[in-house]
Structures are given as structure tokens and as C-alpha cells.
């Protein structure tokens, strides 16, 4: 297998402000983010040969992007893979460039969530018997938090403290980001005393539900060199899908997500990474809930098993820490318009590698990782992308 390493370049990216965008519809979010990426790449819309559109529910088909940008009769594929949708759209576009089918492609991800009239992602709709336990994400991820505390012998207070540190860190990072949904510091006390949403997870353990769009322009390294000096290269892409193993198998432990571990292995092998904690300079991961970020730190081998709370306490993952995580505020504060989230993460890595992350800029940013997790503990889609500076 040849792999994707250094064969596809990111030459342009765009990202809207995330949040409650009452005055923006889905088409606006697509247009705003895509035109920013096109301008950043220094190309014209007519240069785009193919597109991939990631959304879980904001319009159907690839036509959404053609309608928003008035692209004239080019192939556009709609991608849906739960919360990993944006990254999977990016992955498929990268493979088409690597295969030599196209020279310049567009990836768009957008989600208009705030027109539903209720908080959270809701549940229901569709067709079926509706006998399954209600699956709002907080309730399902909280199952992992309860078990994590039991498995590692943490008291309720110790668990809540470990989780609160993650919320406080990501809220701080969000204050440095003008495009983030939430831009306000919180204290440990606020996090610990927040109203309960899905015990043991409180309000500040849960990420924002937001509207937003993000986009990328991909091309070959050869063409990228003609467009700009500070393009970024794809180093590795990993994607795995669970098959309900954790919900069927009574030996599944609920304190690690096998989909993370397997997707990370694919991406690390492709990127040639042997020691993730040392070799990766920053990561933007799927902190849909604080417990998710805690477990991801262990699944990605940033922390040893059961030791992520210690690393959080030591400040390992803060902006000034050894391995900054969620420098842009994460899902927690940047927000989570599902189809756009993976591309928003890539946007942050892209900016950090270019040294254009303003107040959030970390000192050394050569290799960055993004991580998405879609679904529920017991059956996830996990997508990981690793980007690096050009040689």
C-alpha cells in the first residue's frame, strides 16, 4: 500500500464563526466558508473540478454546494458519517486527488442545527419501532464516565475534578478565538457546580450545539507550490467503524474506544509516527463531552491508560503544555455543527502550522492531529487526520 503521506496538499481553508447564527441559513454557511477557502487558495470557483459535501442533515445530495456557489455541472458527493462526516469528506477528496483523478477539489462541511427549536441534538424522527433506549449523546457518553470512575477507582469528586479541568482549559482557549461559539472563561467551581444534564455530566461537560460551516481546497503538492509557500501536507488518514461490538459484547469495558485505537494506528503508521506524545505538536480532538477528551488522550497514546486525569492536572494539554489539545476551544467552545466540525479542526491545525493562529499560536507546530468520533460508546465512527508542514 502506497498510503497518502505527502501526496496531497491543503492550499486553502475557510471557517465561519460558529454559534447561534440566526441570520444564516445552510446555504450561507456553505458559501461563507467555501469562498474564504477559495480566496485563501488563490483560485477561482471555476478551477474546482470536483467537490465533497459533508452534512448529517443540512440538505441532501452534493447539489447543496453547487447551488450555493453556482458550480457548473461538476461531480459533488454528499458524505455522512455522523460526527466524523467532515473529516470523512476531506478523506475521500484527498484520495481522489492522490489517485490522480482531479487536480483541484473542494471539501465543504456545514450544519444548520439551531432551526429545530430545541436544545441539544434531540432524538427521534425517522422510521422504526423506537424501542431503543433514548440516545441523546450526553446520556450515552455519561455511561463511559460512570464506568471510568469505577474502573480506575476514582471517587465521584475525583472524576468531576478531572472533567472540570478539561472544560476550564477549553473555555480558556475559546476566549482567544473570535470565531468560537463560546468566548468566556469559566472557573473550576462553575464547572463542578453546573446543573446536571446527564449524570455524572453537568452543563460544562457538554459541548455547544452550533451552526457553522468550514471548507478546504486540496490539490497536488506540485500545483500547491505554484499557489503558495505555506501549504500544508496530509501525513496520514485513519477511519474505522464500529459494528455495535460494545453494545453486544459483555466484555467491552466502556473505558476505551476501540475505534479510536484502530483509527489512530492506521494514521500513525501512514504518517510514520512511533511516539505520538513526543512527535505530535498539537491535537484538536472530539471533546463532545469532557469524558470523551479524557478517554481520547489515552486512546491516542498521549497518556498511559488511567493516567489522563494526572496529565490534565499537570497541565500537559494546555496551550503552554507539552502537547496542547483543543487550542481553538474544541467542540466545547468552538461549537459543534456536525458536518463542519472535522473541517473546523483541520482549519485550526492548518492555521497553527502556518503560524497564523494569532493569540493561540503555539511555539512549535510542525505536526498536528485532528480526531472525530461519531456515534455512541459501543459503536462509533472514528476519523483521524494528521497534517504536517511542507518540507
Amino acid at each position, binding site marked *: 500500500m502506497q498510503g497518502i503521506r505527502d501526496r496531497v496538499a491543503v492550499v486553502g481553508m475557510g471557517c465561519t464563526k460558529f454559534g447561534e447564527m440566526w441570520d444564516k441559513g445552510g446555504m450561507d454557511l456553505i458559501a461563507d466558508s467555501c469562498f474564504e477557502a477559495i480566496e485563501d487558495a488563490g483560485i477561482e470557483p471555476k478551477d474546482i473540478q470536483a467537490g465533497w459535501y459533508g452534512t448529517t442533515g443540512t440538505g441532501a445530495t452534493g447539489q447543496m454546494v453547487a447551488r450555493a456557489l453556482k458550480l457548473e455541472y461538476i461531480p459533488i458527493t454528499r458524505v455522512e458519517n455522523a460526527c466524523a462526516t467532515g473529516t470523512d469528506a476531506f478523506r475521500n477528496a484527498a484520495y481522489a486527488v492522490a489517485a490522480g483523478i482531479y487536480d483541484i477539489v473542494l471539501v465543504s462541511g456545514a450544519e444548520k442545527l439551531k432551526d*429545530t*427549536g*430545541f*436544545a*441539544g441534538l*434531540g*432524538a*427521534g*424522527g*425517522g*422510521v*422504526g*419501532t*423506537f*424501542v*431503543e*433506549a*433514548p440516545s*441523546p449523546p*450526553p*446520556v*450515552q457518553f*455519561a*455511561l*463511559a*464516565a*460512570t*464506568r471510568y470512575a*469505577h474502573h480506575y477507582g476514582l471517587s465521584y469528586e475525583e472524576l468531576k475534578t478531572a472533567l472540570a479541568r478539561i472544560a476550564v482549559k477549553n473555555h480558556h482557549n475559546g476566549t482567544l478565538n473570535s470565531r468560537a461559539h463560546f468566548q468566556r472563561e469559566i472557573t473550576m467551581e462553575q464547572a463542578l457546580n453546573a*446543573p*446536571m*444534564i*446527564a*449524570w*455524572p*455530566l453537568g452543563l460544562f461537560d457538554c459541548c455547544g450545539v452550533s451552526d457553522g460551516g468550514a471548507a478546504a481546497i486540496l490539490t497536488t503538492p506540485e500545483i500547491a507550490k505554484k499557489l503558495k509557500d505555506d501549504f500544508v501536507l496530509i501525513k496520514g488518514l485513519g477511519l474505522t467503524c464500529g*459494528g*455495535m*461490538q460494545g*453494545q*453486544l*459484547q*459483555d466484555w*467491552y469495558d*466502556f473505558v476505551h474506544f476501540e475505534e479510536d485505537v484502530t483509527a489512530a494506528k492506521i494514521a500513525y503508521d501512514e504518517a510514520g509516527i512511533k511516539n505520538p506524545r513526543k512527535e505530535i505538536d498539537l491535537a484538536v480532538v472530539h471533546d463532545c463531552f469532557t469524558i470523551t477528551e479524557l478517554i481520547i488522550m489515552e486512546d491516542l497514546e498521549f497518556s498511559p491508560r488511567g493516567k489522563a486525569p494526572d496529565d490534565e492536572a499537570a497541565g500537559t494539554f494546555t496551550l503552554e503544555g507539552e502537547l496542547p489539545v483543543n487550542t481553538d476551544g474544541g467542540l466545547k467552545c468552538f461549537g459543534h455543527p456536525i458536518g463542519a466540525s472535522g473541517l473546523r479542526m483541520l482549519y485550526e491545525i492548518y492555521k497553527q502550522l502556518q503560524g497564523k493562529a494569532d493569540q493561540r499560536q503555539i511555539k512549535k507546530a510542525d505536526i498536528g492531529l485532528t480526531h472525530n468520533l461519531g456515534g455512541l460508546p*459501543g459503536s462509533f465512527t472514528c476519523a483521524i487526520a494528521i497534517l504536517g508542514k511542507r518540507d
Partner: protein
Amino acid sequence: MAGIVSYGAYVPLFRLGPGTAGWTAPAEKAVASFDEDSITMAVAASIDCMNGMDRSTIDGLYCATTTSPYVEKQGATTVATASDLRRDILTADFTDSLRAGTNALRSALDAVAAGSAKRVMVTAADMRLSTPRSELEPILGDGAAALLIGDERVAVNVVGSYTLANEILDVWRSSGESVVGSWEDRFVVDAGYRSVLPEVISGLFNKYKVEAKDFAKVVYYAPDLRRHGEIARRFKLDDAQVQPPLFGTVGNTGAAFALMMLVAALEEAKPGEKILLANYGDGADAFILEVTEEINNIRNRRGIKGHVAAKKLLRDYQMYASWRGFVQVAAAARRPEMTMPSASALWRERDKNIRFYGVKCKNCGYQQYPPQRVCTKCHAKDNFEDVRFSDKKATLFTYSMDYLGPTGDPPLVVAVINFEGGGRAVTMMTDRDINELKIDLPLEMTFRKLFTARGVHNYYWKSMPVRM
């Protein structure tokens, strides 16, 4: 001779009583939870009744209630399916009368006596509603009884019966109405209960040449405690002869009431004893019962005694009022309305959802729920046998509590459970005290109503802490 082969009962966990904020009556009564109805209570009683028995030996199920969730669509088929009975059986609903329980009993006895069935399950369940704060409200309770009728290994022979039909408008509820109506109490009692119940008992005595002193226990319906006492005095029954009615603990459970009292009597009955059973409603039924040695082989049931002992007091009347739809309670968070389930999907998944079948891999032996096409452990394809998970014990692996989710008893507890013998399910937990939750808590499954959408009642299994 046809008779009772086994008995079982169900009383909901929750009570209204002194200590419930907003409840002014001195006595307790049992109330079905927000996710229970006459179907789910009948299933619980039926399963209690079948404890340790081969379910495939049952040839029919008669379901008695005045509070069937559907006006058109049989309850007995749902009860029989959730009880995991065979499909080649006779199912029938006995409805519209407080006497429905003994009507069903009589019909089951006749079917077995006639040889058209070897064993018939009779369930009786009710959850009648009265106007909030009415005189009737403290009296009416919710519950169920089940009797398995057969002609082999009979624990209680039915040696005689006598019946009266009586046209009277004493209590009624028209189609579309939710609360029980009644005529003036003086007339209702004089011309109805106080006249007809003694008439059927005396008729039974005359027909079989027996008298009150022949019976170790006398079990009979009464609308309330006062009328119950009047009958005892009228027939000069000793205190020891009178089966205590369930007023003050469970309440008058309508079509299930007399049979629940009978189950309570059988829990204490000794071989050789005679029991008189009498029931009232649009006439009256009376039976002479005789207990055999087999009674000692069917003691391991929760029955009335077990269910009455294991109870929890509701915090406030408001919660009960919201369960019954007397008051509207806003959900903690705005969520989408429940969607009506698909009838074709419900039909396709009826064994999974109603019988609660999973599968066991014939290749590697791992049992899993819900049913799969490919084994999650060894990947063998389409090589499974059905396994009933509804009566398997389980333990709590992990859980969370949804403080915003739609439930009548917040927070909604979502529980990942591991079944004895293998297998896992992600379940909703009901009838739990959140202060008692801990990992490894022993659990069992219980058949409940998830929600009603556009007139469709959606039933499924939930987990709950082992009741006792």
C-alpha cells in the same frame, strides 16, 4: 377435575399514602407507574404464575380488564406474546365488567373440562380512574392476578359454581370516557351489591348443599371496606374465615380484585381446605374451591404478599396526577414529539421487542441481544437459535441519568446491563431509587409501555432492580 394449577400476582411498586405530599386519605393504595397499564401488569402476573413451568404447555390465554389500552385490538395476544406462549393457542379478552376476571376463570374451567384445552392462563388486571379528589379516588388501586387453569397437578379443585346475570346501571364508563361513573350510593348498594352478592352465595349454598361454616376462607369482592364488612356479618363469618380485602394496602383493583384476594388466600391455604370465591359486577359469580396437596409445590411466587411488601411511597400527588394526565407537566427541555412507531417494523420485530428474544450462536455459544445475522464474537453467519432474555437475571455494568429526557419519573436512568449466561443490552431502567444505584446491582427485566403516539401504545422491556 379442572382447577387451578398455579397462581401469580402483580402489584405496582408505587403507593399513594400518608407521607405522599398532597394525599389526604388515611390509607395507602397501589398505583401503576407512568410506564404501566393493564397489559403490562397482566404480563407481570402471568410470568409470576409461570415461575418454573414449561410455557409451551399452555393452550390459551384469557385477559380480563375494564381498562384495555385499545378499544379495538386484542390485549390477550400482546399478553400471550410477552409471556412467550405458543402461537397455536386461543386468546380472548374479557372486558367491560368488574366481573370480567371470574367470567374468564369460568370460561377457562369450562374449556379445560370440555377438553378443548389442557391449560389456560387467566389474567385479570385493572387500573381504573376516578375523578381526582373524589370519594372513590382513595379506594381504587391498580394490580393484577393470574391463574393457570388445567386438569393435571391441580392445586385447587373447582368443585362447583353458580352465576347470576343482573341488569343494573350502578357503575359504568362509556367508550371515550376516562373516569368511572356511578349512580347515587344508596340505590347502587341496596339494589346492586348488597342484594345480588348474597343472592349468588345463597344460591351456591342451596345448589351444593353447603353452608358458610364449611369454608376455611371466604373470598369476595366489595366496592369498599364497609360493604365488605356487611357481607361478613350477614353470613355470620368468623374473622378467621374472612379473607382480608386489600383496602388500605392496594385498593379495589376492579376486575382483578377478587382474583388478587384469592391469590392472597391461596398463599396461606392448606391442603384439604375449602374456599368460597364470590365476585360482583353486572350480576355475580360464586365458586367452591378445594385445596389439594399440590399447593405446596407452587409456593415460590412473589404473589400478593411479596409484591405488597416491596413498595415505595410516591413523593407527591402531583407526579401521580401527571402520570394519569390530570395535569400537564412541562418537560425539562424542549424535545421533538415522539413519532408513531411503524406498524410493519413493529410486526417484523415482534419477537425481539415483545418476546424479548435474542440469539445464541450455535458455533461459539455466545448469546446476544438483539438478534444478529452475523455473530459478534465468531462471525458465523445465520447460525443461531432463539433465546428468551425476558426472564434472565442481569447486573448493572454502567449507567447514566438523563435529567432532561422525557420520562414520568425523572431522571431517566439508562443502564448497560450484562445478562446471566452472557449478552449485553443498553436499557432504560424503571422502578428504581437513584440512591440505590451502583455498579453490579442485580437487575431483572420488566415489560412496560414506552409511550403512546397517535393512539399506538409502544411496549418494550426495561430493566429494574430485582423487586425483592
